[in-house]
């Protein structure tokens, strides 16, 4: 559903506020499909905020954006889709090690996508964000 909307109506992401409304709708829908998801996202947010020089903001295309050292680490959409930016080299290393995929839109960039569904996914999401944090700190 998310992929279909992004593919066919992705151009609407430039309409002010619309991505945020869509993200709120995703959160509402997720309540019925995976009621623990919003708690997982809250836990990830709390963990990232416990690291030095981090903060969160609203992602321009909807979702929670994690920042460190005034740069974006990644963001989570309301349906639990985590997007993280790595260098191309690190992306390939991580894709061999973890069940992560090319970014759902920018497949040839350093971005990766990972769908959070379970507690173990939450732990992996934190691990990946930590890797991006260390990359940005080095």
């Amino acid at each position: 559903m998310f992929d279909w909307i992004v593919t066919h109506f992705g151009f609407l992401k430039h309409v002010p506020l619309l991505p945020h409304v869509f993200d709120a709708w995703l959160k509402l829908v997720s309540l019925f499909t995976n009621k623990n998801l919003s708690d997982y996202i809250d836990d990830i947010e709390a963990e990232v905020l416990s690291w030095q020089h981090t903060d969160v903001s609203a992602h321009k295309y909807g979702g929670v954006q994690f920042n460190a050292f005034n740069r974006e680490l990644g963001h989570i959409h309301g349906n639990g889709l985590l997007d993280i930016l790595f260098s191309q080299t690190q992306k390939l290393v991580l894709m061999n090690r973890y069940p992560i995929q090319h970014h759902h839109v920018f497949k040839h960039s350093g971005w990766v996508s990972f769908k959070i569904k379970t507690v173990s996914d939450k732990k992996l999401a934190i691990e990946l964000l930590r890797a991006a944090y260390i990359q940005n700190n080095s």
Partner: protein
Amino acid sequence: MSSYTRNAYTRILLGILVANLVAIILVGASKYLVTYLEGNHAGNSSGVFIFSSFIVVPLLMGAISAWYWHPLQLKTLAYIGWSAVSTLVASAASFIFLKEGAICLIIVSPLILCFTLTGALLARTVYRRKNNTLNSSLAGLALLVLLADTFSSHENVRLVSDTLIVNAPIETVWPHVVEYKPITLEETYWLFQVGMPSPVQSTVDGYEAGAGRKCIFSNGYVFDEKMIVYKPNEELTFDILSQPHDPEIMGHIDILRGQFILKDNGNGTTTVIGNSWYKLYVFPGWYFNLWSESITRNVHLRVMEHIKILSEKNV
């Protein structure tokens, strides 16, 4: 949620109450100001609901609630739950103070919940950054949009058209188009099942252009109509002279004109085309048109299916 302290409950309730109070003032003021500005163009509506009433105001409601809630560090799930409570309070307030009907509130609630939640979650993030200049700029921007929307033109006339093939010759179909016996078909459309009035019967005063026609609905409401085109076996067009003032959807929509066009298919069957023109007084049009089209379409289909059954019985 049971682990909240008394102070936390106070903040949560204040967030809901203040947000709703501001919403009632803004919606009430904009509704009557727009109706006043639109003058005669406001038609028979009890007031125009601009898109800001259902978008900007809920966004502000969410932002106001989040202002009270953010020091409590609530989870997202709590934001969703309390935003739903705030939407329920807004619906109850609309029912009591704005005299809205229950079905109208069922239609509008998903829109309000989605935008209230968007406002609350966005504001939560903004408040965390403790940027008061940004906070006041966003609030100012929202109020500016509300004002600009209030003083903009609000005109939304739409046509809904439906077609049905009747397995009967045109001269058999025509009399049932002009007037028809009470509809006994079971209600299949969910809004009719939950209490929205559905069409039951149509009667006429005469068989010529200029004659009166009445469309009677299930709750006894009557639409008074005047036939302006009466071409047997071809076209019946009627203007709606008066419609009931029901607090439900009827208060926010004017049905302007109805039309039936009949076409002989040359094989003993007839194509019946039903057209209705209406004017909406609730915005955003893209959302409410989805509902009004669906309702109008189901009114058409209920009548046209009835015409089909009556006509085919006589073949």
